[in-house]
């Protein structure tokens, strides 16, 4: 049997903002259907790593691959624009602050991508939006504007919007950090459902319990490097590195 191509691969990723190096050589490989949770203290570079994967940040050096295609290839101008827009259609991203489009209804938020980018007919896109909304439990909000939704509902719509492009991988950057505690579970439930459907996911989170429940692998970052990684059981029960232990002690006791 030939070894399967990873869905997401990051090799030697380095990124600086000005004089500050935020990613100091990150290697990461995520298999098809695998779920990787990324944890670590504030400022350790988790968001920057995630944003580098769909090129919202461009690396100073290193490579990012999606399903055998290099994301950050050396193309110029319009050629790179076309390339990256195609690649991004295959990666869903969910942001801490939802980033829904406030001037569009829930239906329009979700169906706009398929209609404009994939040339899907309006009625097909609306049917797709409807089925995704049912999936995240918000079919009754289809004509609402985002401002009328709670944070948890907004985030579920944002997930549906990303799923509407039928992505190969979903990137979550602290999807529940901006939510009131009582709204966290409804979003986590949707993510667990995606996990059950074998969606490939990278999840940046501060919720250790959720990471433990959903992830196949947990990756601990600190100071722009991956300090330690492994299955959640090992990582949470018997971390090898002192830095991991200190970090986890603080979180698990809280």
């Amino acid at each position, binding site marked *: 049997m030939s070894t399967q191509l990873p869905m997401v691969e990051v090799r030697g990723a380095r990124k600086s903002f000005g004089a500050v190096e935020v990613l100091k050589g990150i290697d990461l490989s995520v298999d098809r259907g695998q779920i990787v949770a990324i944890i670590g203290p504030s400022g350790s570079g988790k968001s920057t790593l995630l944003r580098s994967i*769909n090129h*919202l940040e461009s690396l100073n050096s290193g490579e990012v691959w999606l399903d055998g295609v290099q994301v950050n290839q050396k193309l110029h101008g319009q050629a790179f*624009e*076309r390339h990256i*827009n*195609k*690649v*991004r*259609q295959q*990666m*869903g*991203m969910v*942001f801490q*602050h939802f*980033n*829904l*489009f*406030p*001037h*569009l*209804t829930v239906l329009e938020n979700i169906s*706009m*991508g398929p209609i*404009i*980018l994939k040339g899907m007919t309006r009625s097909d896109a609306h049917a797709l939006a409807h089925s995704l909304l049912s999936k995240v439990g918000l079919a009754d909000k289809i004509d609402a*504007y985002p*401002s009328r939704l709670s944070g948890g509902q907004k985030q579920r719509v*944002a997930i549906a*919007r*990303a799923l509407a*492009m039928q992505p190969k991988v979903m990137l979550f950057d602290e999807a529940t950090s901006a939510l009131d505690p009582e709204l966290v579970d409804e979003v986590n439930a949707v993510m667990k459902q995606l996990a059950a459907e074998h969606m490939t996911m990278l999840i940046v989170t501060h919720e250790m319990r959720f990471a433990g429940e959903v992830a196949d692998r947990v990756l601990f970052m600190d100071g722009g490097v991956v300090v330690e990684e492994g299955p959640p059981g090992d990582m949470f029960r018997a971390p090898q590195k002192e830095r991991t232990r200190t970090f986890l002690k603080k979180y698990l006791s809280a």
Partner: protein
Amino acid sequence: MQGLDFTVVAPYWDLLLIGAWWTAVLTVSAGALSFVGGILFAVIVLYAPVIVAYPVRALMWVFMGTPLLLQLFLIYFGLVQIGIDIPALAAGIVGLGLHFAVYNADIIRAGIVAVDVGQTEGARSIGFGKWQTLRHVVIPQAIRNTAPPIGGNLIALLKESSIVSVIGIAELVHSAQLAISETFRPFEFYITAAALYYILNLVLEAALRLFERHVEASR
């Protein structure tokens, strides 16, 4: 001294209504031009390469820094001299439209810059290109957020449109002056013209409120 007698207006009522009609046509056409031009100028100033942005900026500066009257004379009488002969109505629409486009551009540019960067990231993460993101996500929000001042400019445009009477366009003030030249009753005709402007204004404000109500629905 003469007493006021509005019956003198009656024979000229058609003339005044036609004038009001042309004022409405001017306002709608120049208003549309000022709106589209405002968006275009704003986008060019923000995103176009300097080779395009610089001349446009210079043009905007000229339109902002000189009187509208002079701009109209320049477009209507000046351009003929270099072989560009524009009908008066078109000159009036272009002059008014560009003049207000410059003011709209300033407002819309600020509106675009004020749209949260998360909106752009949200759109780009789905796979929208730069232009698609501007067109479908950023500009619509910038327009909604700047609707009140842009509406204010449109109302100013309606009132300022009377200035094109100087290049012979038969709009409302022009019609009133024509009637006055035959009847020597300035007071009655200017008052009637003012009333007609007021009505046009009400219609315009109602249309703007309708749009703002539509925007409010998404807030």
